[in-house]
């Protein structure tokens, strides 16, 4: 029996929001940002406005980062640390994310999820090097649970 990673399926995309259906497995698993096939933050953000540059979510995920601190500020809405060197000043767009269980697995278990962010290469996604990615993990022994990962650009009306 193989080990299945956590899987992501895009279920809704707007210029301000990405929503994924997530099925639990063995994590942590990266939601990449490499411009490859879906699921991919850059590809999926762009899908909301094909051919158009007016896309705040695409702007957020296309912002370069050099480390996890910067990735967390862009994707998890962390406020800048006073005096720290960071691309995320108070006026730079950033996102936040939350994950919510939808249904239990056949054993009746619900997921105990973690959502974090990191720089792509450091997270194990070489194609995402230099860009922020999400890292999603779930407590062991909870395969087959469905949840929604809800990513939204802060300070917007599309909520």
């Amino acid at each position, binding site marked *: 029996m193989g080990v299945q990673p956590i899987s992501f*399926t895009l*279920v*809704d995309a*707007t210029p301000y*929001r990405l*929503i994924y*259906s997530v099925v639990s497995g063995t994590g942590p698993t990266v939601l990449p940002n490499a411009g490859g096939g879906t699921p991919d933050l850059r590809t999926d953000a762009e899908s909301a406005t094909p051919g158009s540059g007016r896309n705040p979510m695409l702007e957020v995920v296309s912002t370069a980062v050099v480390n996890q601190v910067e990735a967390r500020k862009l994707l998890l809405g962390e406020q800048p640390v006073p005096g720290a060197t960071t691309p995320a000043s108070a006026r730079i767009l950033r996102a936040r994310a*939350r994950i*919510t*269980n*939808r*249904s*239990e697995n056949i054993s*009746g*278990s*619900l*997921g*105990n999820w973690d959502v974090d962010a990191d720089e792509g290469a450091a997270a194990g996604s070489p194609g995402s090097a230099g860009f922020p990615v999400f890292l999603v993990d779930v407590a062991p022994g909870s395969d087959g649970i469905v*949840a*929604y990962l*809800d990513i939204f650009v802060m300070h917007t*009306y*599309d*909520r």
Partner: protein
Amino acid sequence: MAITLSLRYATPDWLIYLAIQDGVISSPPVAADGLVTLPNDGGVTPDLQTDILRAKTDPPGAAGGVSGLPLQDLIRARLDGHGPLGPGALTQAEARALFLSDNTGGILSDQVTRARTWITPRSSEGSVQWAADANVDGDGDPVIEVRSSVGVAADAFLYIHLRHTFDL
């Protein structure tokens, strides 16, 4: 029933409930130990059709009728139709598209308003997991199902939020 829901706040775009898991496991255990359905029948609160009417503020608490409350449009999708849906009984996939913004299968076009539903723990320090799903009742009305792990008392907030609004 081990999970109870009580309305905590209602606006034209938000319904917020407190969900309380009493931690009691039936003997023998039953599904209701960790599952409660927020109905949509127009009955006593907690009920989607009833509770959204609490959002009407002119005058406060008066019945809102069937217009002027945006979230009410989704709640009454079977009765009045919503976008490409109905009137008529909905499917679970349609209820999920409306209330969870899960547009798998492209049920809704980009212009159709929809909601997001989520649940966040308030107490229990992480030992109880919660889930929120959308389904339909016997009439085909959309309902919200709340699940939790059992055996430990805990509470959480259930949020139902109409998207694309200023009511943040």
